[in-house]
């Protein structure tokens, strides 16, 4: 049967801890959607919780704050992977609770 466990964990590890242009601290914060300062906080929170609210001005604000396009790219990827990871792990826990894990 298909199993994404090792693949999603490797993806999460890579975007948080692997080589990147944004600092590991910044990428970890984007992944967990916690501990960021403005304007990155607004952009990351929108990506995680209501991505339709992202507007051009959110990107422009983080660019004006000094982040490069690659750093913005990494923040958005970390925010999206982080939210997908939290959803998935929560749902697997619910599935295991409903079935005793089998």
């Amino acid at each position, binding site marked *: *049967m*298909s*199993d*994404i466990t090792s*693949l*999603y964990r490797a*993806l999460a590890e*890579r*975007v948080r801890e*692997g*080589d*990147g242009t944004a600092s590991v601290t910044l990428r970890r914060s984007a992944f967990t959607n916690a501990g960021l300062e403005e304007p990155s906080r607004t952009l990351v929170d*929108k*990506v*995680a*919780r209501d*991505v*339709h609210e*992202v507007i*051009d001005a959110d*990107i422009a604000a983080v660019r004006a704050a000094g982040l490069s*396009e*690659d750093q*913005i*790219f*990494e923040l*958005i*990827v970390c*925010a*999206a*992977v982080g*939210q*997908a*990871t*939290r*959803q*998935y792990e*929560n*749902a*697997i826990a*619910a*599935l295991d*609770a*409903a*079935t005793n*894990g*089998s």
Partner: protein
Amino acid sequence: MRLSILDRGHDIRTKALFLIMRLVSRHQVVDAVKLAFYRPDFAGTGRLTQEAMRGQSDWSVADRELMAAFISKVNNTEFCVIAHSATAGMAYKDDAKVTATLADLDTAPIEEPLRAVLRILGKLTLENGLDADDIRPALVAGASYQQIKDALAVSFAFNLTDRLAEAFGFAVDDPAAIRAGAKYLLSRGYG
């Protein structure tokens, strides 16, 4: 797209590949492909999505493409709704089934285990979490533990992809490019 690096920041080999793709397909390279080829060592999700969508499963490829379209509809991500509705319709050889499912899950002409699992995916996508009581109706409807787990893998892939598509501002392709993309996904997959 909102970041110019996703349109023009690829390395020279990838730019050459995109040129060949444009010449062969006679379509512009779609934004999803531009993203997939941008720094894949950092952000690549191809293997994960391939495993979720084409790995061994009791769900058919058509069922999983329908799940992708349904999740994307709940996320209101137009690019992915259109692309994966087309792929699911082609895989089922039944566009009406896909259209009916996205229009009204309660009355859609699909099997009960699939309907119940789509309800789980819809709630997870909207509310970001589930509890055991949300899972049990799907078990009663006949979905197995592994089928639900496989569906949650599709959910991971598309709750991620939808967020990237919206945040980066994917353009919606013309119908001919969408059909070509659906054929490609069915013949070649995501990896």
